[in-house]
Protein backbone atom coordinates (compact mmCIF):
# COMPACT_ATOMS: atom_id res chain seq x y z
CA UNK A 1 0.00 0.00 0.00
CA UNK A 2 1.42 3.39 -0.92
CA UNK A 3 2.22 5.49 2.14
CA UNK A 4 0.48 8.53 0.79
CA UNK A 5 -2.76 6.69 0.04
CA UNK A 6 -5.63 9.14 0.17
CA UNK A 7 -8.98 7.37 0.45
CA UNK A 8 -11.83 8.62 -1.67
CA UNK A 9 -14.97 9.14 0.39
CA UNK A 10 -18.39 10.01 -0.94
CA UNK A 11 -20.58 11.69 1.65
CA UNK A 12 -24.35 12.05 1.39
CA UNK A 13 -25.56 14.72 3.79
CA UNK A 14 -29.10 15.71 4.54
CA UNK A 15 -29.72 19.34 3.74
CA UNK A 16 -31.36 20.34 6.98
CA UNK A 17 -29.08 18.95 9.67
CA UNK A 18 -25.90 17.32 8.50
CA UNK A 19 -25.06 19.60 5.61
CA UNK A 20 -25.64 22.51 7.91
CA UNK A 21 -23.40 20.73 10.43
CA UNK A 22 -20.63 20.48 7.86
CA UNK A 23 -21.22 24.12 7.04
CA UNK A 24 -20.95 24.90 10.72
CA UNK A 25 -17.58 23.17 10.80
CA UNK A 26 -16.48 25.34 7.90
CA UNK A 27 -17.67 28.66 9.28
CA UNK A 28 -16.21 27.83 12.70
CA UNK A 29 -12.89 27.11 10.97
CA UNK A 30 -12.87 23.54 12.22
CA UNK A 31 -10.91 21.59 9.64
CA UNK A 32 -11.67 18.10 8.40
CA UNK A 33 -9.96 15.99 5.73
CA UNK A 34 -10.68 16.93 2.13
CA UNK A 35 -11.00 13.27 1.23
CA UNK A 36 -14.75 13.51 1.46
CA UNK A 37 -16.76 14.67 -1.54
CA UNK A 38 -20.07 15.85 -0.25
CA UNK A 39 -23.37 15.39 -2.04
CA UNK A 40 -26.22 17.33 -0.51
CA UNK A 41 -29.57 15.56 -0.49
CA UNK A 42 -32.89 16.88 0.81
CA UNK A 43 -33.21 14.14 3.43
CA UNK A 44 -31.41 10.97 4.45
CA UNK A 45 -34.60 9.31 3.24
CA UNK A 46 -33.59 10.37 -0.28
CA UNK A 47 -30.50 8.19 -0.19
CA UNK A 48 -31.34 5.21 -2.32
CA UNK A 49 -29.19 2.13 -1.61
CA UNK A 50 -28.44 2.39 -5.33
CA UNK A 51 -26.30 5.44 -4.55
CA UNK A 52 -24.24 3.44 -2.08
CA UNK A 53 -23.73 0.53 -4.45
CA UNK A 54 -22.92 2.92 -7.29
CA UNK A 55 -20.26 4.69 -5.20
CA UNK A 56 -18.50 1.42 -4.42
CA UNK A 57 -18.85 0.23 -8.03
CA UNK A 58 -17.26 3.45 -9.28
CA UNK A 59 -14.30 3.02 -6.95
CA UNK A 60 -15.10 4.88 -3.72
CA UNK A 61 -13.06 3.67 -0.75
CA UNK A 62 -15.73 4.66 1.71
CA UNK A 63 -19.30 5.93 1.81
CA UNK A 64 -20.46 8.28 4.52
CA UNK A 65 -24.08 9.07 5.20
CA UNK A 66 -25.44 11.58 7.65
CA UNK A 67 -28.92 12.76 8.51
CA UNK A 68 -30.90 14.41 11.26
CA UNK A 69 -31.10 12.67 14.62
CA UNK A 70 -34.14 10.41 14.90
CA UNK A 71 -37.08 12.58 15.82
CA UNK A 72 -35.58 15.70 14.21
CA UNK A 73 -36.32 14.93 10.56
CA UNK A 74 -37.46 17.99 8.65
CA UNK A 75 -39.92 15.71 6.90
CA UNK A 76 -40.99 14.14 10.22
CA UNK A 77 -40.10 10.52 9.48
CA UNK A 78 -37.75 10.32 6.48
CA UNK A 79 -34.80 9.19 8.53
CA UNK A 80 -36.81 6.45 10.25
CA UNK A 81 -37.43 4.77 6.92
CA UNK A 82 -33.87 5.45 5.86
CA UNK A 83 -32.52 3.84 9.03
CA UNK A 84 -34.08 0.51 8.09
CA UNK A 85 -32.67 0.68 4.59
CA UNK A 86 -29.20 1.60 5.82
CA UNK A 87 -29.19 -1.28 8.28
CA UNK A 88 -30.03 -3.80 5.58
CA UNK A 89 -27.69 -2.27 3.03
CA UNK A 90 -24.86 -2.47 5.55
CA UNK A 91 -25.53 -6.16 6.04
CA UNK A 92 -25.61 -6.73 2.30
CA UNK A 93 -22.39 -4.97 1.41
CA UNK A 94 -20.54 -6.64 4.23
CA UNK A 95 -21.80 -9.98 2.95
CA UNK A 96 -20.38 -9.11 -0.46
CA UNK A 97 -16.97 -8.52 1.06
CA UNK A 98 -16.88 -4.76 1.48
CA UNK A 99 -15.49 -4.21 4.98
CA UNK A 100 -18.18 -2.72 7.17
CA UNK A 101 -15.72 -0.01 8.24
CA UNK A 102 -16.01 1.43 4.76
CA UNK A 103 -19.63 2.34 5.30
CA UNK A 104 -20.71 4.71 8.00
CA UNK A 105 -24.08 6.20 8.85
CA UNK A 106 -24.22 8.91 11.52
CA UNK A 107 -26.75 11.36 12.83
CA UNK A 108 -25.29 14.87 12.73
CA UNK A 109 -27.29 17.96 13.69
CA UNK A 110 -26.78 21.50 12.40
CA UNK A 111 -24.97 22.47 15.58
CA UNK A 112 -22.58 19.51 15.56
CA UNK A 113 -19.84 20.99 13.38
CA UNK A 114 -17.16 19.74 15.70
CA UNK A 115 -18.64 16.27 15.83
CA UNK A 116 -18.83 16.19 12.02
CA UNK A 117 -15.19 17.09 11.73
CA UNK A 118 -14.17 14.44 14.25
CA UNK A 119 -16.22 11.76 12.52
CA UNK A 120 -14.73 12.52 9.12
CA UNK A 121 -11.20 12.61 10.50
CA UNK A 122 -11.62 9.27 12.23
CA UNK A 123 -13.33 7.75 9.16
CA UNK A 124 -10.54 8.95 6.88
CA UNK A 125 -7.88 7.54 9.18
CA UNK A 126 -9.66 4.21 9.33
CA UNK A 127 -9.96 4.03 5.53
CA UNK A 128 -6.35 5.05 5.07
CA UNK A 129 -5.36 2.16 7.31
CA UNK A 130 -7.59 -0.26 5.37
CA UNK A 131 -6.03 0.77 2.08
CA UNK A 132 -7.67 1.04 -1.33
CA UNK A 133 -10.89 -0.95 -1.70
CA UNK A 134 -10.06 -2.08 -5.21
CA UNK A 135 -6.64 -3.65 -4.82
CA UNK A 136 -4.07 -3.65 -7.55
Amino acid at each position, binding site marked *: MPVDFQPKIIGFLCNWCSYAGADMAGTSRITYPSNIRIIRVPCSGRIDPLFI*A*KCFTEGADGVFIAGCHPGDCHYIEGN*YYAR*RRFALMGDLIE*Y*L*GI*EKERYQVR*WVSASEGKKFSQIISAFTDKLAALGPRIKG
Partner: protein
Amino acid sequence: MMDKNIVKQIRDKAKELLSNGTIKCVLGYETGTDGMNARPAFIYEPEDVDRLIFDNTCTHNLSTYLRDKRENPVAIVVKPCDARAINVLLGERQIEREKVFIIGIVCQEVVQVSWGELSHDAQMRCKICNQHTPVIYDFLIGGPVDESAPKAEPPANVTAMEGKSSGDKVDFWSGQFSKCVRCYACRAVCMGCYCTVCFVDMLDPEWVGIKIATPENQMWNTIRAFHLSGRCIGCGECARVCPVNIPLDLLNMKMEKEVGEHFEFVSGLSSEEPAPLASFLKDESLGIGE
Protein backbone atom coordinates in the same frame (compact mmCIF):
# COMPACT_ATOMS: atom_id res chain seq x y z
CA MET B 1 -43.93 -39.34 -7.94
CA MET B 2 -47.44 -38.24 -8.60
CA ASP B 3 -50.25 -38.40 -6.06
CA LYS B 4 -53.28 -39.41 -8.15
CA ASN B 5 -55.70 -38.12 -5.58
CA ILE B 6 -54.18 -34.62 -5.58
CA VAL B 7 -54.17 -34.54 -9.37
CA LYS B 8 -57.80 -35.63 -9.52
CA GLN B 9 -58.85 -32.93 -7.09
CA ILE B 10 -56.98 -30.26 -9.07
CA ARG B 11 -58.59 -31.38 -12.32
CA ASP B 12 -62.07 -31.59 -10.81
CA LYS B 13 -61.80 -28.16 -9.25
CA ALA B 14 -60.38 -26.66 -12.46
CA LYS B 15 -63.18 -28.18 -14.50
CA GLU B 16 -65.80 -26.91 -12.11
CA LEU B 17 -64.43 -23.34 -12.07
CA LEU B 18 -63.99 -23.17 -15.84
CA SER B 19 -67.37 -24.72 -16.53
CA ASN B 20 -69.36 -22.45 -14.25
CA GLY B 21 -67.57 -19.40 -15.56
CA THR B 22 -66.02 -18.35 -12.24
CA ILE B 23 -62.66 -18.02 -13.94
CA LYS B 24 -61.23 -17.80 -17.45
CA CYS B 25 -57.97 -19.67 -17.00
CA VAL B 26 -56.24 -22.08 -14.66
CA LEU B 27 -52.55 -21.60 -13.97
CA GLY B 28 -51.25 -25.04 -13.12
CA TYR B 29 -48.70 -27.61 -14.15
CA GLU B 30 -48.44 -30.13 -16.94
CA THR B 31 -45.79 -32.62 -17.97
CA GLY B 32 -42.95 -31.05 -19.96
CA THR B 33 -41.36 -32.23 -23.17
CA ASP B 34 -38.80 -34.38 -21.38
CA GLY B 35 -41.68 -36.51 -20.14
CA MET B 36 -40.53 -36.30 -16.54
CA ASN B 37 -40.43 -32.72 -15.27
CA ALA B 38 -43.39 -30.39 -14.91
CA ARG B 39 -43.86 -27.10 -16.70
CA PRO B 40 -46.38 -24.30 -16.23
CA ALA B 41 -49.71 -24.86 -17.94
CA PHE B 42 -52.48 -22.44 -18.82
CA ILE B 43 -55.84 -24.13 -19.17
CA TYR B 44 -58.71 -22.21 -20.76
CA GLU B 45 -61.19 -24.94 -21.63
CA PRO B 46 -62.86 -27.49 -19.30
CA GLU B 47 -61.99 -30.30 -21.73
CA ASP B 48 -58.27 -29.55 -21.32
CA VAL B 49 -58.10 -30.03 -17.55
CA ASP B 50 -56.71 -33.52 -17.91
CA ARG B 51 -53.41 -31.95 -18.89
CA LEU B 52 -53.02 -30.75 -15.31
CA ILE B 53 -50.71 -32.66 -13.01
CA PHE B 54 -48.99 -32.16 -9.71
CA ASP B 55 -45.84 -33.85 -8.45
CA ASN B 56 -42.57 -33.01 -6.75
CA THR B 57 -41.09 -31.52 -9.92
CA CYS B 58 -43.59 -28.63 -9.80
CA THR B 59 -40.94 -26.14 -8.78
CA HIS B 60 -42.20 -23.10 -10.72
CA ASN B 61 -43.69 -20.29 -8.69
CA LEU B 62 -46.73 -19.62 -10.85
CA SER B 63 -47.63 -16.42 -9.01
CA THR B 64 -45.14 -14.68 -11.30
CA TYR B 65 -47.69 -15.06 -14.11
CA LEU B 66 -50.44 -13.26 -12.24
CA ARG B 67 -49.12 -9.91 -13.47
CA ASP B 68 -49.88 -11.01 -17.03
CA LYS B 69 -53.35 -12.18 -16.11
CA ARG B 70 -54.81 -9.20 -14.29
CA GLU B 71 -57.69 -8.73 -16.69
CA ASN B 72 -59.84 -11.75 -15.98
CA PRO B 73 -60.32 -13.94 -12.92
CA VAL B 74 -57.99 -16.93 -12.85
CA ALA B 75 -57.37 -19.93 -10.66
CA ILE B 76 -53.84 -20.72 -9.62
CA VAL B 77 -52.26 -23.84 -8.18
CA VAL B 78 -49.92 -22.89 -5.35
CA LYS B 79 -47.50 -24.58 -3.04
CA PRO B 80 -47.09 -23.08 0.45
CA CYS B 81 -44.10 -20.96 -0.68
CA ASP B 82 -46.05 -19.68 -3.69
CA ALA B 83 -48.99 -18.86 -1.40
CA ARG B 84 -46.72 -16.48 0.50
CA ALA B 85 -45.81 -14.87 -2.83
CA ILE B 86 -49.51 -14.24 -3.38
CA ASN B 87 -49.71 -12.50 -0.03
CA VAL B 88 -46.79 -10.29 -1.02
CA LEU B 89 -48.50 -9.39 -4.29
CA LEU B 90 -51.78 -8.71 -2.49
CA GLY B 91 -50.02 -6.58 0.09
CA GLU B 92 -48.34 -4.58 -2.65
CA ARG B 93 -51.66 -4.13 -4.48
CA GLN B 94 -50.40 -5.93 -7.57
CA ILE B 95 -53.35 -8.27 -7.80
CA GLU B 96 -56.94 -8.22 -6.68
CA ARG B 97 -58.04 -10.95 -4.28
CA GLU B 98 -61.43 -11.35 -6.00
CA LYS B 99 -59.76 -12.13 -9.30
CA VAL B 100 -57.62 -14.99 -8.03
CA PHE B 101 -58.99 -18.34 -6.95
CA ILE B 102 -56.23 -20.04 -5.01
CA ILE B 103 -55.96 -23.82 -5.15
CA GLY B 104 -53.53 -24.51 -2.31
CA ILE B 105 -51.59 -27.74 -2.17
CA VAL B 106 -50.09 -29.20 0.97
CA CYS B 107 -46.50 -29.81 -0.03
CA GLN B 108 -43.72 -31.90 1.45
CA GLU B 109 -40.91 -30.89 -0.85
CA VAL B 110 -39.97 -30.35 -4.45
CA VAL B 111 -36.90 -31.89 -6.01
CA GLN B 112 -34.07 -30.28 -7.91
CA VAL B 113 -35.23 -29.92 -11.45
CA SER B 114 -33.26 -29.86 -14.64
CA TRP B 115 -34.55 -30.71 -18.08
CA GLY B 116 -34.12 -34.31 -19.10
CA GLU B 117 -32.97 -35.45 -15.67
CA LEU B 118 -35.16 -36.88 -12.96
CA SER B 119 -33.86 -36.06 -9.52
CA HIS B 120 -34.83 -37.46 -6.15
CA ASP B 121 -32.94 -34.85 -4.13
CA ALA B 122 -35.09 -32.32 -2.37
CA GLN B 123 -34.25 -28.68 -2.97
CA MET B 124 -32.23 -27.12 -0.21
CA ARG B 125 -34.98 -24.63 0.60
CA CYS B 126 -37.39 -27.51 1.15
CA LYS B 127 -35.09 -29.17 3.62
CA ILE B 128 -35.36 -26.17 5.96
CA CYS B 129 -39.00 -25.37 5.19
CA ASN B 130 -41.49 -25.56 8.02
CA GLN B 131 -44.50 -24.23 6.19
CA HIS B 132 -46.16 -27.20 4.56
CA THR B 133 -49.68 -25.82 4.36
CA PRO B 134 -50.41 -22.72 2.23
CA VAL B 135 -51.08 -19.59 4.33
CA ILE B 136 -53.78 -18.47 1.94
CA TYR B 137 -56.13 -20.51 -0.23
CA ASP B 138 -59.70 -20.84 -1.42
CA PHE B 139 -59.54 -24.59 -1.83
CA LEU B 140 -57.05 -26.79 -0.06
CA ILE B 141 -55.80 -30.10 -1.37
CA GLY B 142 -53.84 -32.49 0.80
CA GLY B 143 -53.99 -33.75 4.32
CA PRO B 144 -52.97 -32.01 7.53
CA VAL B 145 -49.25 -31.83 8.21
CA ASP B 146 -47.48 -31.64 11.53
CA GLU B 147 -46.29 -28.04 11.58
CA SER B 148 -44.78 -28.30 15.04
CA ALA B 149 -41.33 -28.95 13.62
CA PRO B 150 -38.72 -26.63 15.13
CA LYS B 151 -38.24 -23.27 13.46
CA ALA B 152 -35.83 -23.51 10.60
CA GLU B 153 -32.23 -22.58 11.23
CA PRO B 154 -30.68 -20.03 8.92
CA PRO B 155 -29.33 -21.91 5.94
CA ALA B 156 -25.88 -23.32 6.57
CA ASN B 157 -24.41 -21.86 3.38
CA VAL B 158 -25.41 -18.34 4.44
CA THR B 159 -23.74 -18.76 7.81
CA ALA B 160 -20.67 -20.17 6.11
CA MET B 161 -20.48 -17.19 3.77
CA GLU B 162 -20.84 -14.76 6.66
CA GLY B 163 -17.90 -16.41 8.35
CA LYS B 164 -15.52 -15.79 5.46
CA SER B 165 -12.97 -12.99 5.41
CA SER B 166 -13.70 -9.90 3.32
CA GLY B 167 -11.07 -10.96 0.83
CA ASP B 168 -12.57 -14.42 0.45
CA LYS B 169 -16.05 -12.96 0.07
CA VAL B 170 -14.84 -10.61 -2.66
CA ASP B 171 -13.14 -13.47 -4.45
CA PHE B 172 -16.22 -15.64 -4.24
CA TRP B 173 -18.68 -13.05 -5.44
CA SER B 174 -16.41 -11.64 -8.16
CA GLY B 175 -16.03 -15.17 -9.43
CA GLN B 176 -19.77 -15.66 -9.45
CA PHE B 177 -20.66 -12.27 -10.93
CA SER B 178 -18.00 -12.57 -13.62
CA LYS B 179 -20.13 -15.38 -15.07
CA CYS B 180 -23.30 -13.30 -15.30
CA VAL B 181 -24.38 -12.55 -18.88
CA ARG B 182 -27.25 -10.34 -17.73
CA CYS B 183 -29.95 -12.40 -19.38
CA TYR B 184 -32.21 -11.12 -16.60
CA ALA B 185 -33.87 -14.50 -16.22
CA CYS B 186 -33.61 -13.99 -12.44
CA ARG B 187 -35.75 -10.89 -12.81
CA ALA B 188 -38.10 -12.35 -15.38
CA VAL B 189 -38.94 -15.39 -13.29
CA CYS B 190 -39.35 -13.45 -10.04
CA MET B 191 -42.84 -12.72 -8.78
CA GLY B 192 -41.49 -9.66 -6.96
CA CYS B 193 -39.82 -8.09 -10.01
CA TYR B 194 -42.79 -6.41 -11.57
CA CYS B 195 -41.52 -2.84 -12.00
CA THR B 196 -42.59 -1.34 -15.32
CA VAL B 197 -39.11 0.08 -15.78
CA CYS B 198 -36.36 -1.73 -13.90
CA PHE B 199 -33.49 0.40 -12.61
CA VAL B 200 -31.06 -1.64 -14.70
CA ASP B 201 -32.85 -0.62 -17.90
CA MET B 202 -32.88 3.08 -17.11
CA LEU B 203 -30.76 5.18 -19.43
CA ASP B 204 -31.05 8.51 -17.70
CA PRO B 205 -29.68 8.19 -15.10
CA GLU B 206 -27.85 5.11 -16.22
CA TRP B 207 -27.32 3.16 -13.00
CA VAL B 208 -25.71 0.17 -14.60
CA GLY B 209 -23.45 0.58 -17.62
CA ILE B 210 -23.97 -1.40 -20.78
CA LYS B 211 -20.76 -3.34 -20.33
CA ILE B 212 -21.29 -6.87 -19.07
CA ALA B 213 -18.42 -6.84 -16.61
CA THR B 214 -18.00 -7.91 -13.00
CA PRO B 215 -18.56 -4.49 -11.35
CA GLU B 216 -21.71 -3.83 -13.40
CA ASN B 217 -22.96 -7.34 -12.81
CA GLN B 218 -22.34 -6.97 -9.09
CA MET B 219 -24.23 -3.68 -9.11
CA TRP B 220 -27.17 -5.37 -10.82
CA ASN B 221 -27.28 -8.38 -8.55
CA THR B 222 -26.70 -6.35 -5.38
CA ILE B 223 -29.52 -3.94 -6.01
CA ARG B 224 -31.86 -6.66 -7.14
CA ALA B 225 -31.21 -8.49 -3.89
CA PHE B 226 -31.82 -5.29 -1.96
CA HIS B 227 -35.05 -4.54 -3.81
CA LEU B 228 -36.30 -7.97 -2.79
CA SER B 229 -35.43 -7.59 0.88
CA GLY B 230 -38.51 -8.22 2.95
CA ARG B 231 -40.38 -9.27 -0.18
CA CYS B 232 -38.57 -12.40 -1.32
CA ILE B 233 -40.37 -15.53 -0.18
CA GLY B 234 -37.46 -17.82 -1.01
CA CYS B 235 -38.94 -19.77 -3.91
CA GLY B 236 -35.40 -20.05 -5.26
CA GLU B 237 -36.52 -19.65 -8.86
CA CYS B 238 -33.80 -17.08 -9.61
CA ALA B 239 -31.08 -19.53 -8.70
CA ARG B 240 -32.79 -22.37 -10.53
CA VAL B 241 -33.10 -20.52 -13.83
CA CYS B 242 -29.65 -18.91 -13.87
CA PRO B 243 -27.99 -20.43 -16.94
CA VAL B 244 -24.51 -19.92 -15.48
CA ASN B 245 -25.36 -21.27 -12.01
CA ILE B 246 -24.88 -18.17 -9.88
CA PRO B 247 -26.25 -19.04 -6.41
CA LEU B 248 -28.54 -16.02 -6.25
CA ASP B 249 -30.60 -17.53 -3.45
CA LEU B 250 -27.53 -17.11 -1.27
CA LEU B 251 -28.06 -13.35 -1.49
CA ASN B 252 -31.79 -13.46 -0.98
CA MET B 253 -31.63 -15.86 1.95
CA LYS B 254 -29.13 -13.59 3.64
CA MET B 255 -31.44 -10.62 3.24
CA GLU B 256 -34.41 -12.57 4.57
CA LYS B 257 -32.35 -13.66 7.53
CA GLU B 258 -31.45 -10.04 8.32
CA VAL B 259 -35.01 -8.88 7.79
CA GLY B 260 -36.07 -11.52 10.29
CA GLU B 261 -33.44 -10.53 12.82
CA HIS B 262 -33.86 -6.76 12.55
CA PHE B 263 -37.59 -6.51 12.10
CA GLU B 264 -38.97 -9.91 13.18
CA PHE B 265 -40.62 -10.15 9.82
CA VAL B 266 -41.22 -13.09 7.52
CA SER B 267 -42.48 -12.03 4.12
CA GLY B 268 -45.77 -13.29 2.82
CA LEU B 269 -47.24 -14.67 6.03
CA SER B 270 -49.97 -12.08 5.77
CA SER B 271 -51.06 -9.53 3.21
CA GLU B 272 -52.02 -7.05 5.92
CA GLU B 273 -48.76 -6.62 7.80
CA PRO B 274 -46.84 -3.58 6.50
CA ALA B 275 -43.66 -4.32 4.54
CA PRO B 276 -40.55 -3.85 6.69
CA LEU B 277 -39.05 -1.20 4.42
CA ALA B 278 -42.32 0.68 4.20
CA SER B 279 -42.68 0.95 7.97
CA PHE B 280 -40.55 1.69 11.04
CA LEU B 281 -40.44 1.77 14.80
CA LYS B 282 -39.36 5.04 16.34
CA ASP B 283 -37.32 3.51 19.10
CA GLU B 284 -35.37 0.90 17.17
CA SER B 285 -31.69 1.80 16.77
CA LEU B 286 -30.61 -1.06 14.46
CA GLY B 287 -27.03 -0.11 15.23
CA ILE B 288 -27.34 2.81 12.85
CA GLY B 289 -26.16 6.35 13.54
CA GLU B 290 -24.12 5.74 16.64
